[in-house]
C-alpha cells in the first residue's frame, strides 16, 4: 500500500462502479481485501466496457468461424484472408460517452484507439469509416456536437494519414443527450506478419512504447459504463486527449520494430491503459507479468501507481520483446523519437505484480482480472410498448392528395431531410485519398480500395437503420446485416466478415436487454444464412440520460473483396440509353420509414418482411451482373424507398442523368409505392447492349425483378401506368438533396 492511499472499503469499491457482490467476489478470489491499486485494476477490468458482463452470454451465439477467418474475436481486431500473402484486418469501436462530454477530443481519440487496434496486429491502416448519430440538427447544442465530432475525426485521421472511405450520419431525438460515434478502421497485413497480443517467453522484457503517461482519461472505462445525469460536465477530465502526430510516429516505429523480428507480442493501450494490457497479454498466454511502474515515462509529477495503471493517455503500446533483442526495439523507437522503456518481465506465475520503487502495490492473478469478471444473465422482458408500435398502421393515416405535385413535394422534402440529404459537408473535411488506393470515394453505397500489386479490391461500409431495430429488434438487426452485405454486393464485392458496434441503453433495464438479446439473435441468423462470420466487435451500453435511452443501434461494419477491382460498380446512372431494372420483391412498408418520420414525426408500424434466402440470391445476382460487366450502376433501396433511390441514382453523383420510369399500374397508395421501405431491393441500370445478357443471367437466380425504365434527359419521371407520380427536373432534386443537411451546419 502506498502512503496516502485511501482505505479500501465497500463504499470505496462502490464508488468505483463495483457492486457489493463483485467486491465480495474479489475478496474471496484474492483471499484478502484488495489494495487501493488493486481495487483500481478490478474496477477498470471488471467494468462493463472492458468485461462485457451483461453481454457476453448473448454474444456467444454469434457465428465467428469460416475457412477464410484467420483471427476471430478475442484479439484486438479480426483478420480475414484476402488470398495470396495478404490479409485484411478490421474492427469498429464506440467512443460515445467521451464524445458527448468533449466532442472534439472524444471523437478524435475514438479514431486513435481503433487505429491502434489495427496496427497492433501488424497491419498498416488503409481506411477509416465513421458511423454517427445525433439529435435534431436544428438544436444548437446538437450542431455544436456535430461540428466538434466531425472536426475531431478529421483532425485525427487527416494528421495521422489514413483515408476516410465512408460512414453514415443519422438523426433521432433519442440521441440528443447520447450521440453515437462509432469508428471503424481497416488494415492490410501480410499473413507472415501478423502479431498478437500475447506475453510469451519467461524472462522476456516488457516494453512501454509511445507517448508519456499523464492523468488524462483515468476511469474512462468506468465512465463509459454508466449513464449520464446532471453531473456529466464534471466528467471532463475523464476524456482522453489525442495526438495524431505521435500516433503516426508510433505506427511507423511499430511496423519497423515488427519487421526486425524482435517483437514477440504487442497490444495497444486503450481503455484501462496499462491495467488492461498488463493483464490481458499474459492471460492470453497463461503467463504472468511483473512491472515497475516508476519506470513508466510520465508527463506529470507525483503520479501514484493507481494513476499510472489506470491512465488512458493515448498513443501508447505495450510490447514483449525477445530477450536479447532489446536494442532493436530501443533503436527503432529512438529513430522515431518515441520513448521505449523496459518496464518489466514476463513471468510464469500467472500473476500481475506491480511494483512502485520496489514495493509491491498490486499482486493479482491475471486471469482474475482479464477472464473472471462475472458473466451476468440479467432479466430480459419484451417492452410493454412493443405491441402498440407494431399495431400502428401508417396507411390508416389520411392519404395525401393524389397529385403529381404532392408526390414531388414529398420526394423533395425527403431528399432534404437531414437523414437522407448529402453528407458531403462531413466527408469533404476528411482526406479520402492518402495512400492512392481509393477507387470509390464516400458518396456511393460502399467505399472501394485497390490493393497495389494485385487485381484485388476491398469494399467497406457501415450500416444500421435504428428505427427498424426499435420496431423489431430481431428483424431490424438482421436487416442491418443484410443492408451492409447488400451495399458491398452492389459495389461488386463479396462480403468477407463483419464487425459490430452494439449501442444500447442500460442493460440493467429488462426492456433494453431484451432489445440487445433480440438484436444479437437477428445478427446471428443473418450471418448464418448469408455466410458472413463475425470477426470482432464492441458493445456500448448505458447510452441513456435520465432514463431516456437511445434507439437500439447495432451498427454493422463490413468488409468485402472484389476479385477484380476494375469490375466495381457505383450507385450513379452512367449512360444515356441504359435500361433501368428493379430487383427484389415488391413488399414494402411505410412502417418505420423515413417518410413516416419526416411527414408525421412517428416511428411506428410493421416492417416489410426479410427473406434471407431471397436476400442472398439477390446479392449473388448483383455480384454476377457486375462481374460480367453488364451494369452501369447499382443502388441499394434504403431510407426513402424507391423514389429516393432513383433520385439519388440520377442526381447525387459527379454526373447527372435523368430517368424515365414506369412501375406499371400499381394498386394502392402512391406514397407506399414511392417511399415504402423494404429489404432486398436494388435499382440497377443495365448497358443497353447487354440487356439480353442481363435477362439470361437473372433467370439463373431466384430473384423477382422487372424492367422499369430508361436513363436519359434531365428529369426524373416516375409513372404508374397512366398516372404520373413524380416529374421533377434534376436541378430541383440536386438542390434539395445538396442543402438538406448542410443548411444546419453552415
Amino acid at each position, binding site marked *: 500500500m502506498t502512503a496516502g492511499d485511501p482505505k479500501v472499503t465497500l463504499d470505496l469499491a462502490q464508488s468505483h462502479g463495483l457492486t457489493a457482490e463483485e467486491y465480495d467476489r474479489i475478496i474471496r478470489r484474492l483471499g484478502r481485501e484488495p489494495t487501493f491499486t488493486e481495487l483500481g485494476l478490478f474496477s477498470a477490468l471488471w467494468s462493463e466496457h472492458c468485461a462485457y458482463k451483461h453481454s457476453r452470454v448473448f454474444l456467444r451465439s454469434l457465428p465467428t468461424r469460416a475457412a477464410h477467418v484467420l483471427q476471430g474475436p478475442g484479439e484486438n481486431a479480426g483478420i480475414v484472408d484476402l488470398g495470396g500473402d495478404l490479409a485484411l484486418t478490421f474492427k469498429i469501436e464506440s467512443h460515445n460517452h467521451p464524445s458527448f462530454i468533449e466532442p472534439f477530443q472524444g471523437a478524435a481519440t475514438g479514431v486513435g484507439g481503433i487505429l491502434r487496434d489495427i496496427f497492433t496486429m501488424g497491419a498498416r491502416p488503409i481506411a477509416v469509416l465513421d458511423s454517427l448519430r445525433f439529435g435534431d440538427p436544428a438544436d444548437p447544442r446538437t450542431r455544436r456536437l456535430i461540428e466538434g465530432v466531425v472536426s475531431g475525426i*478529421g483532425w485525427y485521421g487527416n*494528421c495521422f494519414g489514413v483515408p476516410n472511405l465512408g460512414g453514415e450520419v443519422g438523426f433521432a431525438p433519442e440521441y440528443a443527450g447520447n450521440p453515437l460515434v462509432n469508428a471503424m478502421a481497416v488494415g492490410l497485413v501480410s499473413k507472415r506478419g501478423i502479431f498478437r497480443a500475447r506475453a510469451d517467453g519467461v524472462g522476456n522484457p516488457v516494453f512501454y512504447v509511445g507517448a508519456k503517461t499523464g492523468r488524462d482519461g483515468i476511469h474512462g472505462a468506468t465512465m463509459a459504463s454508466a449513464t449520464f445525469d446532471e453531473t456529466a460536465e464534471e466528467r471532463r477530465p475523464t476524456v482522453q486527449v489525442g495526438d495524431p502526430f505521435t500516433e503516426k510516429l508510433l505506427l511507423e516505429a511499430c511496423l519497423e520494430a515488427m519487421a526486425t523480428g524482435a517483437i514477440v507480442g504487442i497490444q495497444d493501450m486503450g481503455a484501462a491503459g496499462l491495467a488492461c494490457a498488463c493483464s490481458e497479454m499474459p492471460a492470453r498466454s497463461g503467463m504472468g507479468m511483473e512491472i515497475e511502474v516508476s519506470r513508466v515515462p510520465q508527463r506529470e509529477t507525483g503520479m501514484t501507481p493507481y494513476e499510472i495503471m489506470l491512465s488512458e493517455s493515448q498513443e501508447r503500446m505495450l510490447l514483449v520483446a525477445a530477450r536479447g533483442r532489446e536494442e532493436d526495439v530501443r533503436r527503432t523507437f529512438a529513430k522515431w523519437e518515441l520513448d521505449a522503456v523496459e518496464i518489466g518481465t514476463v513471468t510464469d506465475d500467472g500473476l500481475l505484480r506491480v511494483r512502485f520503487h520496489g514495493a509491491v502495490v498490486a499482486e493479482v492473478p491475471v486471469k482474475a482480472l482479464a477472464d473472471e469478471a462475472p458473466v451476468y444473465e440479467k432479466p430480459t422482458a419484451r417492452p410493454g410498448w412493443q405491441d402498440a408500435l407494431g399495431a400502428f398502421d401508417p396507411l390508416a393515416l389520411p392519404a395525401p392528395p393524389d397529385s403529381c405535385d404532392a408526390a414531388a413535394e414529398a420526394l423533395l422534402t425527403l431528399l432534404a431531410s437531414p437523414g437522407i440529404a448529402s453528407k458531403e459537408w462531413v466527408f469533404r473535411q476528411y482526406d479520402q485519398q492518402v495512400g492512392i488506393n481509393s477507387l470509390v470515394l464516400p458518396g456511393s453505397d460502399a467505399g472501394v480500395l485497390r490493393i497495389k500489386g494485385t487485381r484485388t479490391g476491398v469494399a467497406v461500409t457501415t450500416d444500421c437503420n435504428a428505427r427498424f431495430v426499435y420496431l423489431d429488434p430481431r428483424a431490424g438487426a438482421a436487416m442491418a446485416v443484410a443492408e451492409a452485405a447488400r451495399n458491398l454486393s452492389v459495389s461488386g464485392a463479396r462480403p468477407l466478415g463483419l464487425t459490430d458496434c452494439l449501442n444500447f441503453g442500460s442493460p440493467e433495464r429488462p426492456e433494453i436487454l431484451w432489445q440487445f438479446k433480440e438484436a444479437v439473435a437477428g445478427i446471428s441468423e443473418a450471418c448464418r444464412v448469408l455466410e458472413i462470420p463475425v470477426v470482432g466487435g464492441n458493445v456500448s451500453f448505458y447510452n441513456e440520460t435520465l432514463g431516456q435511452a437511445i434507439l437500439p443501434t447495432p451498427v454493422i461494419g463490413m468488409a468485402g473483396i472484389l476479385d477484380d477491382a476494375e469490375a466495381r460498380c457505383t450507385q450513379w446512372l452512367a449512360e444515356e440509353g441504359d435500361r433501368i431494372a428493379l430487383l427484389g420483391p415488391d413488399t414494402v412498408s411505410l412502417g418505420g420509414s423515413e417518410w413516416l418520420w419526416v411527414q408525421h414525426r412517428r416511428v411506428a408500424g410493421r416492417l416489410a418482411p426479410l427473406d434471407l434466402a431471397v436476400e442472398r440470391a439477390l446479392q449473388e445476382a448483383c455480384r454476377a451482373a457486375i462481374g460480367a460487366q453488364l451494369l452501369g450502376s447499382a443502388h441499394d433501396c434504403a431510407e426513402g424507398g424507391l423514389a429516393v433511390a432513383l433520385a439519388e441514382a440520377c442526381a447525387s453523383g459527379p454526373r447527372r442523368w435523368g430517368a424515365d420510369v414506369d412501375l406499371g399500374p400499381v394498386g394502392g397508395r402512391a406514397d407506399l409505392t414511392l417511399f415504402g421501405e423494404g429489404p432486398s431491393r436494388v435499382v440497377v441500370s443495365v448497358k443497353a447492349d447487354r440487356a439480353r445478357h442481363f435477362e439470361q443471367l437473372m433467370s439463373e437466380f431466384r430473384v423477382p425483378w422487372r424492367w422499369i425504365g430508361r436513363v436519359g434527359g434531365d428529369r426524373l419521371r416516375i409513372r404508374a401506368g397512366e398516372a404520373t407520380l413524380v416529374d421533377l427536373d434534376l436541378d430541383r432534386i440536386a438542390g434539395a438533396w445538396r442543402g438538406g443537411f448542410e443548411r444546419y451546419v453552415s
Partner: protein
Amino acid sequence: MNFGVVIFPGTWSDCDFHYVISEVLHQPVRYVWHRDTNLADFDCLILPGGFSYGDYLRAGAVAGRSPVVEALPEFTARGGLVLGSCNGFQILCEAGLLPGALMRNECLQYRCQSTYLLVENAETAFTRAMRPGQVLKMPISHGEGKYHADAETLRGLREKNQIVFRYCTEHGRVVKEANPNGSLDNIAGIINDEGTVLGLMPHPERAAEAAVGGTDGTLIFNSILGTLVEDGSFLKR
C-alpha cells in the same frame, strides 16, 4: 533521373510519390530521411504532403528548419530541382525558399476535393510538357492552403512569371467560386526566381493513374523528365 522523396516525422504522401515515380514512371527513387544532408546523388527532390511535426507551431515551421531543407539551396545551386506539394509547399515557404505563406483556409475547415488548375507558365522545368492556358484536374487536401504574400511580393511574382498554377473552373476561368481556400489571386502553385523550386498545394501523385482519379499529375513529372511528346498528344488537351 534520380528522384529522392523526403520523409519528415509526420509526412504521409512519401509512399504515394515513391510508388508513382517507381511503378508508374519507372524512374529510380529513394527515400531521404530528414536528417540527411548528402544530396549529391539526386536530380530531383520531392517534399511530399502530410503533417510534418503534426503542424505544430505552424504547418511546415519545424520541418522548414531541418538539416535536409537547409541543404536545399546548395542542391538547387548545383542544378537540382525541388518539387514541394501541399505540406512540402508549406515547408518551402517556411524555409524562405519560396516567397509568401500558406494560411488557414478561408472557410476555416479542412478541404479534400478535386480542383482545376490553369497553367500560367508552361516554360518551367516542371511545366514544359504543358500548354499555357491548359486546364489540369488535380485533388487538394488541406486545412492551410490559402496562399498569401504582400503587395510587393505579389507584384514581383507576376512580373517574373513565377505564378505557375491558379485555381480555375473546368473551363479555365479564374474566378472566386473556383478558389477552394481563398488563396490570393487564386494562386495554387509558384516557382522560385531561379526556376528550380516549385511549390503547389494540389497533389500530383494522386492524379497519376486513370483508376484513382486522372493522369494530369504525370504532366509535371514528364516535364521534369524532359519528356516532351513530339506527336503533340499532350497538347491536344
